[in-house]
């Protein structure tokens, strides 16, 4: 697996996959996509990088432990239900905020988006942890 071609190609491919996964994540509210599938795509990118350049490099690139990333995602997803408390609405009610960026550009920020980012982080962390453990055992 460690051919020169693959080793050269893998970092670029991984970066592309992570970028695409973020696109899928942001697109996922009303169209196909979302946190879970986005997380799988990003984790696949890191897994490819690990196969090509070694697990240690992936761990260094991630900086945090994969399981800590996963836990942070679950934390974010659970916390996204809390702001509804301030509005006197039930837990996990979706709240929206549309800041104007001038020039007719509107951002759609919402608690479902925060939840989705939490799911994304949770899936990324958990799948990378599994993939790296398997790759380590092979080597």
């Amino acid at each position, binding site marked *: 697996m460690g051919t020169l071609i693959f080793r050269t190609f893998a970092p670029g491919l991984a970066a592309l996959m992570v970028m695409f996964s973020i696109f899928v994540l942001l697109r996922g*509210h*009303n*169209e196909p996509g979302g946190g879970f599938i986005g997380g799988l795509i990003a984790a696949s990118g890191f897994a490819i990088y690990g196969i090509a350049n070694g697990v240690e490099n992936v761990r260094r690139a991630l900086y945090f*432990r994969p*399981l*800590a990333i*996963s*836990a*942070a995602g*679950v*934390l974010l997803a*659970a*916390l996204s*239900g809390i702001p*509804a*408390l301030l509005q*006197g*609405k*039930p*837990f*996990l*009610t*979706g709240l*929206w905020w*549309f800041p104007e960026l001038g020039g007719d550009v*509107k951002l*759609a920020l*919402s608690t479902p988006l925060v939840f989705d980012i939490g799911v994304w982080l949770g899936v990324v962390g958990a799948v990378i*942890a599994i993939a*790296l*453990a398997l790759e*380590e055992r092979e080597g």
Partner: protein
Amino acid sequence: MRSEDLIQLAAAKGPLPEGIDRADAMTQTPVGLSDWLIIMPVILPLLMGVIGIMMRAYPRWTSRLTVAVLAGVVLASAALLSRVIAEGPIAMTMGQWLPPFGISLVVDPLGGLLTLLGSITGLIVAVYALSDVDFAARRAGFYSMLCWLIAGVNGAFLTGDIFNLYVWFEVFVIASFGLIVLGGERLQLDGAVKYCVLNLIATTLFLIAVALLYGTLGTLNMADLSGKLAAYPPDDPQMLTIGLLFFVGFGMKAAAVPLHIWLPASYHTPKPVVSALFAALLTKVGIYAVLRTYTIVMPASNESVLFEVIYVVAIATIVLGLLGALAESNLRRMLGFLLISGVGVMLLGLGVDTRLSLAATIFYTVHSVIVMAGLYLLAGLMERRTGLTSLHRLSGMYTGAPVLAVLFFVLGFAAAGLPPLSGFWPKVLLIEASLNEQQYVAVAALIVNGLFSMMVVGRAWALMFWRPVVTAGIIPQAETPHPREQAAPVPKAAALSAAPTPPKAEPTPGHNPPALLVPVVVTAAAALIIGVWPTPLLDLSDIAAGDLLDPSAYVQAVFGSAP
């Protein structure tokens, strides 16, 4: 669809393009701060669990913080229960959807009481683990999995949606898989495989039953189901099938005969503190689920043949559990069979099916949670003290460990139902309820249960504490392990992390730190107090049983004024 359109949709002002007004499916009543108490017993341990994973480098602080958070959960559960007793059931439907679209969390007296107990058990176990669980296990996530287990159990007690109940079942089952393999020894993995396989089969049967119910009625909200199922005749074949599937799945979880074999095969393998947690809570969730489905969800099934099935299974469970306990020589396996016999008593209350017998079941559930947690923790103390687990070898401890002798006496005879301890009242109530219904077989089974439990506990106490020293007393001696354990060592199970786990330290015989005694003393004191002063719990059980038999308050809480 272009993004401008998306933003327009998301603003949710005015009708949607398809002519649907989203507000029709939304609740407009504001939710008070006090309603938020409902999710606290679930969300707090869940958050603490993930924070624990993130703080893996600081196991000492993680464990202290976990104890603090679980104490907060106990306070929140107590506040919730007192509010439910004062105002009747309360409900909150997630995400502002109207029931039955959204997932409702509902607290009725039974759910509130069990949530409080689940939280208290979590706190007791967490305090015990402070001095008992080594840092290797803490780094492998002991406290996080403990929190998730408590979150799952509390979620199961609070949810008002039957599919959501399945989800919480999975949450605590997965947490329990993690806890049961902590340490990764051969014997533990052996127990864990049995435990995992049979629990997965049980939850799968439950899921199939939920799917059938949804396919038949098109709703999963318990309050909604209650109304729709009331129209079915008691012996409708479809509902009988679904009800039986529920009972098989939950009965397996609760360890009812003949599906109980996994419990004594696995509960003596993990750390004692994990055994205590499982014995106190996991079987009770099965009991709770049976109670819930057979009263609120399927109110018309009261007259059906299913109650005969429950009745027969309950009596078989009582008798066979005790015979197993009499035959066992391993302390924790013996406790497992005692627990199974108690499960039979709880199911019998449902089988007799009157308000009095259901109250007895609820009372017995409370008693069983407290006493079983205490007994298993005590077994852990004795293993730490002597390094032995077999009744054949434990002996002469009365002189060496008088405190343990007293604690075992109190907790053991509470489990056996000796007055004035906590196990006495529910059995008396249940005998009275059975006599009122002319169920003489049940009366006989309960009397046999009382007699044999005395024999089991008396025998264990006499062997371990009373008889003179057989070996050299409190001096450890390696027991001959089971042939299976003498086989070639297997590779350790992979822990949560890729880091290699150091081998678990063998329990070194010696004196226990006093901090370990505190949780056990608390449970023993609770058993004594409930036994001497049962009135508050009796009244509460009676209210909870009344609410189970008459789901109208529950349904009213979920749907409010809108049917």
